[in-house]
């Protein structure tokens, strides 16, 4: 195919925002219903579980894009010679953090899906609800890993929007890029505060 490498990288960028980004927002939104009480959270989990074609949707719309974006992303990231200590500019640190958070999110997501969706729900037959999550998150180490995993995933998504705006030629000038950079940072603060607040509600 003509422009194969180009398209693969462009689909990598698209999958990050359209599939993974949209799911991340939906996921944090659903989880944050816990702020309205345990019953409220269990209700929204049940509503999702009642979705038709749930497993194919989980595999095709969420699992496959995550695997594609994650595996290819690691291959790309490993090719970089990171140099923020030599060239300590803001955007270079963001470039470096984008890769560090990618590695953390990669490990976190595999572990998160493995322990809850595969071992917990599919193999263990546990009902994923408030009680189950309360038990999981009551372990301080697990809670800490969730905090790190959440912050990394959200940062990787919001900072990824900055790269996305350039990759797709949406914002070209330095002023526009600066505005996007600040806006995505604000988005990081907003989304991660929601996520962190939701996490604390599980251990109350």
């Amino acid at each position, binding site marked *: 195919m003509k422009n194969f*490498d*180009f398209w693969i*990288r462009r689909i990598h960028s698209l999958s990050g925002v359209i599939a993974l980004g949209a799911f991340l927002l939906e996921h944090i939104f659903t989880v944050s219903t816990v702020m309205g009480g345990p019953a409220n959270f269990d209700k929204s989990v049940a509503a999702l579980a009642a979705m038709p074609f749930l497993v194919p949707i989980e595999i095709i719309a969420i699992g496959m894009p995550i695997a594609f974006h994650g595996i290819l992303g690691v291959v*790309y990231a490993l090719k970089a010679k*990171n*140099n923020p200590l030599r060239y300590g500019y803001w*955007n*270079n640190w963001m470039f*470096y953090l984008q890769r560090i958070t990618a590695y953390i999110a990669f490990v976190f997501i595999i572990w998160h899906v493995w322990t809850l969706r595969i071992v917990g729900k599919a193999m263990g037959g546990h009902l994923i609800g408030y009680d189950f999550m309360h038990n999981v998150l009551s372990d301080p180490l697990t809670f800490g890993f969730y905090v790190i995993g959440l912050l990394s995933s959200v940062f990787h998504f919001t900072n990824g929007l900055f790269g996305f705006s*350039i990759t797709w030629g949406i914002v070209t000038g330095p002023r526009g890029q600066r505005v996007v950079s600040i806006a995505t940072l604000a988005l990081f603060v907003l989304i991660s505060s929601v996520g962190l607040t939701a996490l604390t509600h599980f251990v109350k």
Partner: protein
Amino acid sequence: MAEIKKKVHFIIERQDGPNSQPYTEEFEVDYRPALNVVASLMEIQKNPVTKDGKKTTAVVWECNCLEKVCGACMMVINGKAQQACAALIDHLEQPIRLSPARTFPVIRDLAIDRSVMFESLKKIHGWVDVDGTWEVHNDAPRQNPKTATIAYEISRCMTCGCCMDACPNVNQSSEFIGPAPIAQAHLFNLHPIGEYQKEERLDALMEKGGLASCGNSQNCVQACPKDIKLTEYIAKLNRDTNKQALKSLFNK
């Protein structure tokens, strides 16, 4: 009382040949006002004796114009790739550490082989085809003066390679052609005659190691000694290549 002469302390990363092991040697050069790194290297060349008084070979490096126009004397000075002729001692922290820009193959000491950049310029069709269909000076298409201003800015690129050394995605294990040749594609796309090969240039940028390998670290625009707005042209070319990729997907 004899006046103590101010010295400039250099730590230079040396290498005898393309495949030899690098080692460092320290030198001291007499300070004088407005001294720069190239002039200091010339002093070392005249008297190649290390700081400890050991006689050694002269340090090899490249330079030509001595006024930040040719790009030949690019080396890593205190961690950052820059032109040695424009690096004033007064602006540098001592000891001054010099090393070759290892993004490129080292020939000897500070001299590097930048021919990969020339190869990349060939890949992106970095020239204007003058095929003789019209008088160049009489009926040639004109360029908007505003566009000419942008073209002039990009045309000042001297292929020094600072942006290539600063870019995390340009290295031995990646195929990325780097910021400099990408910006040159934009320069020739802006040209009223050069524009005729715009499609070929954008196609070249869409090949493996082309524009899509950019990771937006934006070091290039900081490192460029000619203040070329590299990231802006990369973003513009992103727009252009996306359009062309979609066109060739649906129209061909």
